[in-house]
């Protein structure tokens, strides 16, 4: 989706509930998105912070996956119950979702619907770490790829270079 279209969508979306499923991937810096979203209806979900709050001593992947998944569901439920529509959810530091293979389906089951919008923030280049031992292979695009696999490239918000021919990435 073109950035200009996205801005238009935000504008109408904040004035009234809108039918559809609105799920997008923001591949730039978080600050760039924040300045475009209306504060009064925007909520944040930082996956890393959420993970830190989980009390568990297990290092077993499936257990962590389950715990993380439950916490996300909990958060999504509370957003739905506590705040009126429309609302926008900005999900940041999503790499953990990829690491523990948390299904994006839970967002569809517990949050996505008329009057809600979800934007996953996954800056493509910002996570590179230069000083790592040579035997460690670090892929800074893992979060981005994970989400694109789940959703589709049509959910990507792009600067206005070309027309992607789609307004909504998911139906």
């Amino acid at each position, binding site marked *: 989706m073109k950035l200009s279209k996205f801005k238009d969508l935000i504008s109408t979306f904040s004035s009234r509930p809108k039918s559809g499923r609105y799920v997008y991937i923001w591949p730039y810096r978080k600050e760039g998105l924040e300045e475009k979203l209306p504060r009064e209806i925007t909520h944040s979900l930082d996956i890393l912070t959420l993970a830190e709050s989980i009390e568990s001593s297990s290092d077993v992947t499936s257990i962590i996956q389950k715990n993380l998944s439950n916490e996300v569901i909990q958060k999504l439920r509370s957003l739905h119950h506590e705040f009126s529509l429309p609302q926008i959810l900005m999900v940041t530091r999503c790499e953990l979702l990829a690491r523990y293979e948390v299904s994006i389906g839970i967002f569809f089951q517990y949050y996505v619907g*008329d009057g809600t919008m979800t934007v996953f923030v996954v800056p493509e280049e910002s996570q590179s770490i230069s000083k790592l031992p040579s035997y460690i292979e670090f892929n800074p695009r893992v979060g981005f790829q994970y989400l694109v696999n789940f959703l589709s490239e049509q959910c990507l918000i792009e600067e206005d270079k070309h027309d992607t021919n789609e307004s909504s990435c998911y139906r």
Partner: protein
Amino acid sequence: MIQTNRAAIGELINVKERPETTLSLVRAVENPIKTVSTYVFTESIRNYFSTILESVASGRGQGFWIPAEWGAGKTHFLAALTALLSDNTEELWSNVQDSEIANYYHRLQNSRLFPVILSLRGEGKVGREEGRSLLQIIEKGIEEALEKKEMRDEVTVTSAEEIYAWFSELPPSLKDTISSYVKDQVGLAPKEYAKETGREAFTQLVKQFCSKNNISPNLTASTKERLSYVYRQLTENTVSVKYDGLLFVIDEFGFWQSIHPEGSPEYAHDEEVLETLASLLPKELGFRIYTIIASQQPVPAKLRGGALSDRFINLPLLGGGSEKDYDVIASKRVRDIIVDRIPELNQYYEYYFHNFQFMRGIGEDMFRTIFPFQPRCFEVLRRITARQLPTTRIGINVLHELIDPSSPHNKDLEDENNILKKNELVTVADLLLSYDFEEGLSEASDYRDAYKAYTTAIGSLSTLDLEEAEQGLAQRIIKTLFLWDLAYIDSPRSISLQELTQATLTSEDILKPEDEVTITLSKLSDLPQIEFSKDKGASFIVQVTGQSPVQIFNEIKQGITDPFRIQREWQRSLQLSGEEAMGELTLFPDFPLNQPKSIRVENRKIEYIGEAIIADAWRPEFGEPVRKEDRHFRLVILTQKADIEISALEDERIAVCVPAELSEEAREATKDYLAIQEMQTVYQNKPGPEAEQIRSWVKNKKPDLMRKLIRNQPKRYQAGKIYTKSELAIDACEIFSNPNNDRRFDALTGALLGSTYTDLGVNSGEFKKTFYPPDAGKVFSGLFQPNASGAAKSACENFAAGLGLSKLDNPRKFAPMPPQPFNCLNQKLEENEGHLDVWRIYEGLSNIHGLPFSMITLYVLCFVHYGSPMVDLYLKPNHPLVLRSGSKPPQNRLTQALIPEIEWKAGMEKHFDKLTVSAGPVWNDVVRFARVVKQELHDTIDPTEVKFQEQVFLEALSSLEDTVNRVTRDMKLLLNRLGESPDKQEWDAVSRISEVTQARDFAQFYQRVQEKYTEPGPFKQDLSICYRWGELSRAASEILNTKDYFDVLYLRNIDEQLKLDLMSFKEQLRLGSLIKNPSAWPSLKKNFDEFKRKYRNIYQIHHRDYYKKIGELRRQLEEQKPNLEVLSKLNTVTELGEPYGLDIFHCYQNLIQNLTLCPVTEVARVSVESQPTCNECKLPLTQEAPLEEVQRLSKDLENALKEQLRRLNSEMVKRILACSNDDKATRLLQVIQASDIFSLVNVMDDELIEFIKALFLESSVQTVAQPVLSNLAERYPALEEDKVEEAVAHFRQLLQQAFETAKKENPDKKIIRISLRGTI
């Protein structure tokens, strides 16, 4: 314009909350009451639910596949079903909106299914090469469901669980070895480690051990075994809550199918899992497992259930004949009908049913179900949203947005788009009022180009020659065509004129609706986006760029400047054929250029033959005399202006028409025509969509231009000139103002022949019709041949008297008057001594007296037969004429006697030579009358056959007698009840028939029939009256019922239309007119039924509103009851005076008795079918609620209380009350001083009344009415100043007398008070 007084849409519906259109199965199931209570059951959905619930109730496991398009409501279907199958409490089931489904509540009471709910959207790809399998997702779903039920520790599900279980069952030696391994790795024993970190972590260590030691754990391997394992655990007594089955509900399976294409290993795995769930486990093992899958894809072939329902049963939503479900569901989700306003809805129905074809297949119930939407809205909306829009269920939201009071177009009361203020159905064009819908169309890739074309077309409207009144319709048409195009984007189809008229709800105004749409469409077809032809209808073309056809046309036209080319083309256009002129009629399409063509005209009721020549220039031979036989005129019409010399015209029967120069209008029309022709040629074979578009435009435009060109042609001749030898003043304008050439030529030759044939040899004014050449032969046949055809008889009636060959009262009887041509013949015979060449007769009678040859032939033959003088007609040798017997007339001569025998032949005069003066009771009698009664009877002289014929005849006669008796009885009854007098002539006719039918043999019949009728014709005529009466008598009962209905039907002044209808019906219900045309009764009855429906609607509204008012008035009256009681109590205090306002009590009782409610409270059940008032309450339509009476009573009561308050307020009473130390007296005193009725009513109870009475008793006050003032007035009716003292003295005396009288009457009272009012 049809007058509309329908209520506004907003008054008839309650708009519901905005429906959730993007349901999540999980969230919907978590809110079961809302999910179930908002679910709409249509017939097909009810059947689907029944199928599934029946399966559960019967205890047989089964798979169900729910395929449906986007927006069909799959998720809501699944959610409602899941909620009901997972929860069998009455609290939930009482919310089911369908009684049939709600009945399953009892049947499912013993069912306890363990629900596993999955939505596959967003599942599948998890970043690895191989994603989770369907089985893994199902297992995970089971785990989550167990956790929700807090049964996680009671049931083992996944392979980790199975490994743990395997480990627990190992023989001690291996178990100890693995335990040691675990302890080495993590420092804890297996049990402790599993407890601390979970079984998952522990089983990973076990797997590591097995892997290192090459051990294969013996785990349950197949899908069937693994799911069976779970099922058994859940249905055995070992768990805390025992279930008797499993319910798997899987949504969004289409998403899953899209990432597991057919042929892939994943696809095969999915099939195996689903087959296990839906077939293997339920069918082979008898497990109660129910699997319900919703998908946009059809069920895979392998999983499709056969006749035995062995796999998945297919339950397609909105498919297979249940398409109308969408209309029902969508409407019900967005609004409720206000039940009380059903009569107004019925008025809508009546209006649309009678004015629009689309309503013909829709009943009242269905109309109310989908109100306020026109059915086509659903078709268009569903097709468009099912294809590609931002959300799956936007359709319902669009409808909601249209009628939502908070939508922008509904906020402004003056907005013409305010749907809630409208009293017309929502149309397809109105759908574009939805912001979401329009935005969706503008962005969806499939629709974007069309949307641009649509906005271009709307933007171009200002460039068209549209009148202001047409703008609205033009917009509606464009919007409708645009959306129609999108709805059928895969198989484009045009919409017919009639359909478009209906879709835009164009109603009759000055023009017919179709004509109005045609005119606007013709103008719109100048837009490249609109294509229209009457045959194919209209369609929307996606065209947004390039030079428009109009621009191309204008460019070509500007290049046409050669005046000769324009003149030539105009002349050529005069003779274009119908095909070339595209169905338009040019001036001279069938005339060869510069050659004479025979034409026929009518003059003074005689058809004449002459010739017309269309010529591009004048030629001398056109002016020569008219010489051909039986030719009477010549018309020469030039195609361009020329000057004609009168001297060149040698016959008075010649006229030359010359047109004026071409006008500017004619030149423009010709240029338009040339330009469109050129454009057609240029683009004829060009490829590409643009050329196709232009060809289409040309095709639509050309007829219009052709019409303009051709309709201009007569104007040039109207402005031209007509030349004749006698220089007759013939007005070219008048001649060429006639609508066609027949009329033009008739008018032109009328002037020519009228001035030439001044002594017409026949009195054609008496002809009943125009005389054509064949009529001569028919008249001849009618006069002389006994078996003449009907046409021959008619010809006699039409012409014979006018020709002077018979008398008016008996036109078929040859009885010459004699006519003028006979005199001419006599004269010529005398002049030629009894021998006359026939050609001389024709020459004279044709050229001088203007008789056509065929008519002259008729006169010649009749003259011979007339015999005065006796003449013979000699025929030429070798003539072909024959007698009716086939033989030739002897001696080639036709004598007086032979004339009736000759066979008439057109052109027979060619064989005439000379005219020369020359020197003679039984059955078969009855049968022609008898056949009037029974057609099958026939002539015979065979005695046996005669007997048989008579028997058949008498049976028919007897049956006729019964009919006549019945008819007579019914007609008397009808006449009596309808209060009409019989038509004497018809009664006489029926009486005659009645007498004739009483005959008992054919002789008697013949005698009677002969007495009354000389010919069968009149007998037949009388009988037809009987049959006509019979037809009406069959409807006698219905007619009388209708009459009874009308007799007790009363309408209000406001029901103007119904009053008019009623008057019209009463007028039509006259027996006098019905008896003339009994076949009118069925249609009259139909109109009456229609009238009753309209009446029913207004009656139901009246009934509802009347009793609403009655209820309100009754409440008001009941509120007055305490006041009335207080007045009643105060009236018992005699010391206050006489009781006041006694009539109020009576009035109150009367009113309250009259304010009773009707037991029929549901407005739709108020019936006026058999009588014009409610069956229960008989409320007349004209009755109004007694509003004024109730108000008057309230006022009277208030006044009465005020009066009593005033009495209490008298000084005396106050003094008495003041003397009392009682609290009540103090309170009452305060109320009295404040003059407060309300407080008076509140404080005045029985106790207080008794208290007041006691006070009065104690003070012995008695108020007595005495006529002091009236006595004074009697003595002094008028008073002058000098009598004042006297009058005062008298007044004093009267008062004293009054007090004395009162004291005598009330000896026990201490205080006597005189009321000067006379009465109290």
